[in-house]
């Protein structure tokens, strides 16, 4: 059963790398491990005969979003997550908020467990459905995306537009301070 073996290998890699992402003290390592996790996910998509999703996962998540993360880590200059005074006083570390966060985490676990039980009820693995063929062909993805999901596609452009403006506005605020010491 090489298929099953590969599946467990990739799944283990994805989970292991993701667990290590939050276990690392050095954010640079976290970024690298997250990329490894995305790579394992792409492998799983390939196993599901969805090569386009796999490649998009690599191009957008591992190739673009993680570059952004890397820049943020370098921008903040945080070689270590040190427990400095200001860090311990961070608003997200207040007991009330921490408890709320823990509750959300618990809710997620319950939801995941419920989803798993339901999946066991359905029984059939996702890849064996008849619409799997539609996912595997990029041409089919294009045809469906630009007919049935036309509105969602156009709405995406608005979303991207808003994100672009938002990024510039947020960065400009910092820039105003930088402009004082202009000839840097």
């Amino acid at each position, binding site marked *: 059963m090489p298929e099953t073996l590969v599946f467990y290998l990739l799944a283990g890699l994805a989970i292991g790398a993701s667990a290590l992402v939050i276990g690392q003290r050095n954010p640079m390592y976290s970024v690298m491990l997250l990329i490894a996790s995305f790579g394992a996910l792409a492998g799983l998509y390939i196993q599901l005969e969805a090569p386009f999703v796999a490649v998009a996962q690599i191009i*957008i998540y591992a190739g673009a979003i993680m570059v952004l993360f890397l820049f943020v880590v370098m*921008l903040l200059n945080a070689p270590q997550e040190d427990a400095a005074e200001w860090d311990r006083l961070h608003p997200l570390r207040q007991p009330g908020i921490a408890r709320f966060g823990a509750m959300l985490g618990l809710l997620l676990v319950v939801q995941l467990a419920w989803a798993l039980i339901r999946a066991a009820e359905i029984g059939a693995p996702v890849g064996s459905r008849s619409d799997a063929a539609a996912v595997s062909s*990029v041409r089919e993805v294009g045809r469906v995306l630009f007919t049935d999901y036309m509105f969602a596609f156009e709405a995406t452009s608005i979303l991207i537009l808003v994100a672009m403006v938002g990024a510039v506005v947020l960065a400009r605020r910092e820039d105003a301070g930088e402009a004082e010491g202009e000839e840097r």
Partner: protein
Amino acid sequence: MDGWLGVVIMIVLGVGFAGVMIGLSILLGPRNPTPEKLAPYECGMPAVGDARERHSVKFYLVAMIFLLFDIEIAFLYPWAVALRDLGWAGFMQVVTFFLILSVGYIYVWRKGVLDWGPVARAVRRQVRDKAA
């Protein structure tokens, strides 16, 4: 599935090649480090401070804009393959998509995000004067 095995073999060969080469050089090369040798290069002067300083927010902005356009390009590939089936309706959809995005592109351009160096400083001054 068959084709992907080739990619995996290539990755394994690449990692193996690099690993063997580095291992060989560790075996064959000499090893007598001195404090001067291990200092980061600074044109012969002792290095001042840490290299990992905070840097310009510009790089972050460029990465952000790149990410947004990259999403757009990922949509283009299935469109390009299926265009002959989609016809002019599909063509108009992508043109609309581009027109909406071009608003953002022009905004980013006018705000001087795409400018670096002396041009960027001039644009920044202009924007600030207009605001004042």
